[in-house]
Every structure is written in structure tokens, then in C-alpha cells.
């Protein structure tokens, strides 16, 4: 538990979080490892966890009929994989695959949601951090959609 707490406290996403809040996350967390090539989650399946990536690269992709998998984002060390655990119906929006060996900390979504519900200050802190991620990814997606490098971009 002490190691988990240290890993979480050092993760960029949880920078400056109160130690008692980190402790709350530790109660829902476990160490996980995915070998390169393994599918971590699939679009449409239950999003019962999210992951703090400690080492390795994860490819987010979406499958398009007749085109195959389109890679839309790479996540690396210090990134967070998954926000679908926060919102009903709690289903993954994309596929995630380990591009390299992944060392991560998995957090049980239902466990953390319950803690957020019981401690609103903690819940607000978590929501604020995830909102920041959502905003950054929305901004990145907008830039990608603008297709600024095309001849007409």
C-alpha cells in the first residue's frame, strides 16, 4: 500500500493533491501490467476501471469498417487512461492497446465514485482534475479535426 501511495503521489495527474485524498484513491487501486500488444479495453465494454500510466505507451484507436483501426491518440507515462468510468452508462468510448509493456495503477471506478459521493470535497477535486483532461483532449481533437496540415488547412 505504501508503494501504491508513493506512485500515486508522484503521478503528474495527482500533483499537489492532499495526502488524505491520495489515501482514498489507494483504497480502490492496484498495480497492473499489460504486455505489449495486449488490449486493455474495448469500445462499448464496461468501463469499470481507469489507469494511471507509470511506464509505457498506450494507443487509443477506433475501429472503422473496411479501414481497420484508426489510431487517434498515444498516451504515455504520467497520462491517465479512461474517463468513461465517471459518467453513465460507464462504457469505454475507444479501444486501448499496449504499444509497449505497460506498468500502471488501476483504479476501480465504482469504488472511487462511491468515495466521491460520500466526500464532496474529494469528489470535486477528482472531477476538476478529470475535467482538465477532458478539456485538453477536446482541444487536441479540435486541432486534429481542423486538419491544419492539409493543402487547404
Amino acid at each position, binding site marked *: 500500500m505504501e508503494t501504491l501511495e508513493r506512485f500515486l503521489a508522484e503521478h503528474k495527474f495527482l500533483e499537489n493533491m492532499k495526502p488524505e485524498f491520495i489515501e482514498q484513491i489507494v483504497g480502490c487501486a492496484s498495480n497492473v501490467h499489460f504486455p505489449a500488444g495486449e488490449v486493455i479495453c474495448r469500445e462499448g465494454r464496461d468501463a469499470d476501471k481507469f489507469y494511471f500510466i507509470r511506464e509505457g*505507451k498506450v*494507443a*487509443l484507436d477506433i475501429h472503422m469498417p473496411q*479501414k*481497420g*483501426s*484508426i*489510431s*487517434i*491518440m*498515444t498516451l*504515455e507515462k*504520467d497520462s491517465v487512461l479512461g474517463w468513461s468510468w465517471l459518467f453513465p452508462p460507464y462504457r469505454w468510448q475507444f479501444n486501448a492497446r499496449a*504499444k509497449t509493456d505497460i506498468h500502471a495503477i488501476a483504479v476501480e471506478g465504482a469504488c472511487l465514485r462511491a468515495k466521491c459521493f460520500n466526500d464532496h470535497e474529494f469528489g470535486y477535486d477528482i472531477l476538476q482534475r478529470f475535467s482538465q483532461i477532458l478539456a*485538453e483532449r477536446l*482541444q*487536441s481533437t479540435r*486541432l*486534429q479535426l*481542423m*486538419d*491544419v*496540415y*492539409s*493543402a487547404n*488547412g
Partner: protein
Amino acid sequence: MSNLNGNPMLPQSFRIERIKNETDDTFTVELQPSKNVMDLSFHAGQFNMLYIYGVGEIPISISGDPCSQDSLVHTTRVVGTVTKAMRKLRVGDLVGVRGPFGNPWPVEEAKGKDVVLIAGGIGLAPIRPVVNYIIANRHAFKNVVMLYGTRTPKDILYPREIKLWEKKHRIHTFVTVDRAIGNWDGNVGVVTKLVARAPFDPQNALAMACGPEVMMRFTVRELQKRGIVDENIYVSTERNMKCGIGHCGHCQFGSEFVCKDGPVFRYDKIAHLFDVWEV
């Protein structure tokens, strides 16, 4: 290259020595003076006006090595009438050249510092001379970081060179694409997101960015977030350059002329114009 026998408005005739297709819509031409031996020197970041006889004249940044005077090198994309005609030229054909024009990248000022180069799409072409200059003077620079973003893996310019920058010349190179299908093993995402984790000291770094204007706006914000002050951020802008010497006014950007005062500007000098529509 000295300004064409004293008359910057008079094109000199150059012969195409080599043409290389870089991507589906991008190509590089190497040019040699067709008659007299000329001084081909230029500063990284400058551009030439290339005249395709009977079609028209366009500004194209110089993408060769400023430490070598073997030939004039230009990489461009097929986007308009002139570049379409240029693509059809063959080795041995003649083009007119005026230049070099414009304010260059601050490579001398970057000595003794970390250097952060950020390029988007065809914007890598005007940045490449900076890389060449750094390679020739590698000891004079500290950490050098190259962040390059483009559309898809098949749109990556100079892929072999990029690998050498990392392997042979200690340039931390990060390439990202906006989208990828198939076996792309690299990064997917926008180039601006690479700034946050790039290895440089913001207190002693100088950043140079070139790419689509919207990409540069977001790049500047990320550099600012990392703590680089505006005085240490340089951007290369693009406008409709015609004369190349600040006389005709086609490329006016607020009170500046991009052909003469740019294309490279220190960000704090043009920050007030950067977010203004229709400048």
C-alpha cells in the same frame, strides 16, 4: 547568396540539378546557377522568390544547409498554379531566382542555450536549415529538441534524416501524426502536446516554431505554460510575399512587412497581431 548583382528585382537563371519527391504532394528541387558562379550563401529561415517562366513567381523558403554552398535547395508543396507547374519541370529546366530575402532564425543567439524546434507539416522545410546549422556547430548548443507534427505517417518529410538527427547528432526528436492507420509505431496526437514533456530548461531555452498559424498559436501557449518568456520564442509567419524587399506592401502584417521584417519574428514583437483576425 548576395542579392543578385545588386538588383533584388532581377531574377537570375538557375538550372534544376535534382528533383526528389518527398511525399505525395511535396517535393524538393536542387538548383545551380546556369551561367556565372554565384555566392549561394543564405541564413537559416530566409526565402527565395522562384520564378517559373511563363507562369509566375512565388516565395519558397530555403530548406538546404546554410553551411554548404553546393546548391540551392527548396522543398515545397503542390498547392497552386505555380507549384503545379513547378512539379512538372524536369532536371535541366531553368527557373528564375531572386533572393535570399527575409529575417532569419536567431541561431547565433541560441548558442549556449537549449533549443526547442517545433515544426508542423511543410513547416519543417524552413526549420531544416537550423538543424543543419546546429549539427555543424553541435558543441555550441546545449539540449536540442525537435518536435514535429504532421498529418499522417506518409506525410512525414525527410524521414531518413530525422532518424539521423536523433541517432548521430544528439537531437531529441519527437514525431507525431494527427491520425494513423495500420502499423504506425510512433506517436499519435497534436504536436503542441509534445511541448509539455520535451526535455529542455525553460529558463535557458530558445524556441523556434514554424507551421500553420493556428498550430503556432497553440504552440506558443504551451511554451508559455512551460515557462519560456515571449522574448525567447520565435515564429515564422507566412503572407503573400511579392517584391521581397518591403516595397509593394502585399505582405503587410500590421506595421511589419513579412518579406523584410519577417518571415521570422520574435513573438513579443508580434504578439499583439497574432490573435487578431484578418491581419
